[in-house]
């Protein structure tokens, strides 16, 4: 079949024409290459592979020589413009292209050409350089060198939009440290950028907004100098631009304002500006292009970690709006990821947001219809289903929106999958919903467990985070999780090469066995094995050590038989705990280790003697005893954990207690504890009550239930369902709870 586009040369032929001796052929081929690659990412890649970039860069270099030799001016300019435009297009939004342009040595030539007398040449060159500076691969610009600063100022002062835009791009890309930000301020750059804001063209305003945000980032000093009285009221020009007619300008202005808000507690804190920012960003979601894709990320940066803003956003119906966009489907992956992360931020702290999210429906009629039908069915049979409770209705509603999240878990884009996991993690912080068994179902668990094997580490870690919350489940059995191989996978991941995967897998396991039944714990332990667990306790990474110790703590809590775990294989685990406590690099390791020992000591005499031996064999020199060190620690949790361990070792019902008490007294531990009677921390004081056997009255009993880390108190306290819920509530509302992610 004859080719219909016979007059269109193939890429390889075009390339050979680039090296032609005839200038006419050459320039036409150059223009053709440029026209073929503009807007066409696939063509850029194929030309790149054929080596087009060095060829074009070569033409640029040759033309510069022609300029210096004053050869045919028009022709030369034409070559310069076309080759610069082609290089710029290769670099536009295409990292491989940027790298190729840099590798071909075109960068210094482009810089030189900024001084060319011909306007079109300068325009083309400035654009090409700006494309390079939009990529992270751009060469770092050293602002601290006087020469460079002067060059930058000359760029910004240029009347040509393309050139001043280049200056702004250089700032946006390369300005990183506080020192550089200050240097830019001192050189008067901010004043110049501000004038571009007020009197510049559209592209100058946009470029200026981006540069200002870069200079302000995390630098309250520069912000207050800029917003100070000398330059008039520059913040108001940025605020005005947030209401500009162009969506991109609105977005960039909002992002600049958010940077200022986040860096400096003095500016833009009133409720008016907060509400305005929220509304503008939510409205920008409707933009079909890149602006709409980036808007949710800006929204996240506004509300993350800030309850007041999350509340305002909830009132502005943010969750409904995000849900509406997800429902529309066929989203650009960037937008999908952004919306999921924004939802994650919304639900990260406030139960009201999580409830709102889970009450969203796929279609208004769908949710209640089946229940209506049941209700109107007048047939009385033995098998008539019980009238649906409101809990069932709630579960059904939740399943709709969870289906949306579950879809995202299987998306082809890794960023979307990770974002879906992070969203789940936030939503599953809801104790209420966890207790009601919202999440331990196939829709969520099966795709989540599949992500444990995801090729991307960040997706794995995010999936583990969501799992950690979901497996804390009291009402329903965790059998779904076990059945789909979740438990076994977690143990496999605990052996991963990546430390973040190991520590997060252990975290999930720790939560999985929290107050679980004995059979489940035995299953975990036999799969895990004592040797693996002890090696994890001795892992090189402190975060892994901490989680491994916490896992032991949760495993041995409860029935006495479980304490035998630490004695398996010649006391491998107990030994590892002892060695790790001796050289604990941070308080958290000490805390988990001591609670583990505390739980062991809540068993029988043999167990208590073993713990005692551990404490004392490590104490070569009394001054180096880790027990005393922990009792003197600044960390109140560590002090508390240590005291509770001593409590268990000296509980009066055990025959060996007086002997152990004597040993502790001789080691100076008892006097140390006596000094702590007026400890500033209530938890410590409560624990000390028990050492000195002051009988717990109503008040101290209540104090105990309000206190974290109760798990070691199995000797004295029997849990009822009610009490477990009370303790759990306390656990969650503590922000530094070891339990919830």
């Amino acid at each position, binding site marked *: 079949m004859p080719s*219909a*586009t016979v007059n269109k040369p193939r890429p390889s032929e075009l390339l050979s024409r680039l090296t032609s001796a005839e200038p006419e052929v050459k320039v036409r081929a150059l223009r053709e290459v440029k*026209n073929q690659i*503009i807007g*066409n990412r696939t063509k850029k890649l194929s030309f790149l592979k054929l080596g087009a970039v060095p060829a074009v860069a070569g033409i640029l270099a040759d033309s510069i020589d022609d300029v210096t030799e004053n050869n045919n001016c028009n022709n030369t300019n034409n070559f310069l413009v076309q080759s610069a435009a082609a290089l710029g*297009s290769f670099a536009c939004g295409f990292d491989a292209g940027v790298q190729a342009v840099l590798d071909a040595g075109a960068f210094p030539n482009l810089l030189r050409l900024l001084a060319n007398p011909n306007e079109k040449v300068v325009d083309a060159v400035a654009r090409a350089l700006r494309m390079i500076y939009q990529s992270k691969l751009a060469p770092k610009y050293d602002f601290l060198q006087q020469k460079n600063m002067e060059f930058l100022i000359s760029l910004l002062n240029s009347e040509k939009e393309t050139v001043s835009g280049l200056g702004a791009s250089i700032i946006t890309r390369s300005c990183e440290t506080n020192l550089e930000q200050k240097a830019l301020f001192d050189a008067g750059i901010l004043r110049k950028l501000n004038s571009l804001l007020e009197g510049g063209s559209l592209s100058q305003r946009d470029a200026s907004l981006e540069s200002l945000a870069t200079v302000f980032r995390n630098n309250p000093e520069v912000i207050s100098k800029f917003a100070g009285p000398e330059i008039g009221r520059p913040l108001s020009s940025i605020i005005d631009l947030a209401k500009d007619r162009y969506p991109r300008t609105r977005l960039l202005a909002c992002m600049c304002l958010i940077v200022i808000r986040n860096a400096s507690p003095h500016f833009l804190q009133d409720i008016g500006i907060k509400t305005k920012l929220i509304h503008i960003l939510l409205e920008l979601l409707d933009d079909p292009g890149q602006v709409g894709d980036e808007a949710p990320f800006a929204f996240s940066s506004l509300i993350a970690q800030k309850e007041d803003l999350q509340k305002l956003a909830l009132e502005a119906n943010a969750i409904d709006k995000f849900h509406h966009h997800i429902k529309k489907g066929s989203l650009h992956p960037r937008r999908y990821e952004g919306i999921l992360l924004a939802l994650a931020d919304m639900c990260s702290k406030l139960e009201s947001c999580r409830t709102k999210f889970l009450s969203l429906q796929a279609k208004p009629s769908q949710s209640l219809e089946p229940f209506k039908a049941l209700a109107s069915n007048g047939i009385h049979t033995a098998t008539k289903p019980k009238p649906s409770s409101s809990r069932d209705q709630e579960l059904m509603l939740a399943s709709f929106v969870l289906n949306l999240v579950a879809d995202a878990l299987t998306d082809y884009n890794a960023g979307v999958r990770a974002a879906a996991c992070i969203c789940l993690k936030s939503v599953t912080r809801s104790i209420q919903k966890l207790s009601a068994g919202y999440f331990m179902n196939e829709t969520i668990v099966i795709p989540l467990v599949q992500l444990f094997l995801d090729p991307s580490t960040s997706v794995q870690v995010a999936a583990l985070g969501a799992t950690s919350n979901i497996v804390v489940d009291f009402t329903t059995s965790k059998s779904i999780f076990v059945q789909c191989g979740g438990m076994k996978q977690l143990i496999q991941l605990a052996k991963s090469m990546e430390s973040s995967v190991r520590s997060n897998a252990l975290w999930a396991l720790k939560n999985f066995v929290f107050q679980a039944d004995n059979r489940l714990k035995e299953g975990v332990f036999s799969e895990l094995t004592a040797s693996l667990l002890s090696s994890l306790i001795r892992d090189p990474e402190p975060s892994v050590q901490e989680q491994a110790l916490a896992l032991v703590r949760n495993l041995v809590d409860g029935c006495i038989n479980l304490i035998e775990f630490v004695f398996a294989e010649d006391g491998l685990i107990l030994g590892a705990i002892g060695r790790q406590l001796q050289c604990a690099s941070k308080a958290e390791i000490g805390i988990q280790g001591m609670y583990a020992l505390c739980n062991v000591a809540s068993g029988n005499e043999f167990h208590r003697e073993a713990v005692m031996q551990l404490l004392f064999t490590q104490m070569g020199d009394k001054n180096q005893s880790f027990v005393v060190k922990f009792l003197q620690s600044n960390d109140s949790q560590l002090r508390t954990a240590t005291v509770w361990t001593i409590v268990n070792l000296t509980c009066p019902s055990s025959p060996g207690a007086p002997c152990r008490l004597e040993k502790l007294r001789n080691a100076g531990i008892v006097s140390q504890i006596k000094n702590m009677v007026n400890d500033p921390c209530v938890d410590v004081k409560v624990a000390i009550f028990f050492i000195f056997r002051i009988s717990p009255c109503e008040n101290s009993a209540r104090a105990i239930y309000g206190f974290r880390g109760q798990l070691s108190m199995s000797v004295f306290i029997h849990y009822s369902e009610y009490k477990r819920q009370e303790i759990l509530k306390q656990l969650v509302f503590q922000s530094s709870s070891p339990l919830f992610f």
Partner: protein
Amino acid sequence: MREEWEKRLNHIRIRKEDMNKLVMNFLVTEGYAEAVAKFRMETGTEPDMDVAMITDRMAVKKAVQCGNVEDAIEKVNDLNPEILDTNPELFFHLQQQRLIELIRNEKIEEALEFAQEELALRGEENQSFLEELERTVSLLVFKDVSNCPLRELLDISQRLKTANDVNAAILTSQSHEKGLNTINNIRSLSLEIVRKLVYLLALAQNIILESYLFNK
């Protein structure tokens, strides 16, 4: 009554300068370069951009309106290579138009090859184009395109729509001043003026009615 009218008229401020600006913006946007020059001379209103740029832009618009899409693309790239490089939707619409023109001229083989080599890639690069892509490619299925369900794609209005999109994109890239020389602003300014004219009309009606009643 005349005084009443004039008093109320004075409250309405449609300044002559605003009207002139509106007219100038319209002439610039629609690309009537000669009219721009004449109007400038007569009223002293300054256009917000270089008149030479108007000619360039109009050449592109005209090329699309005549169905010479390839030529239009080359001209846009000469004007500013960034426009099509950073505007995937516009680029897609231009290529879509190119395919439509090939089909209109019954160059079916060429159209097929173009759809395969170029348009399919756009669909791969960006899923949101897929639906429109499928619609356009479906044209190839029909023997009698002018009577098929998708015949509106072949309509001149489709060309005009694409031409306007390109015009707007070029205008945006060329925009200098803060606001006033864009299509949106023309709309909002003209809306303002229309509103005031309607008010005037209503006012005139009221006054006539009053006088009628009064005289009765």
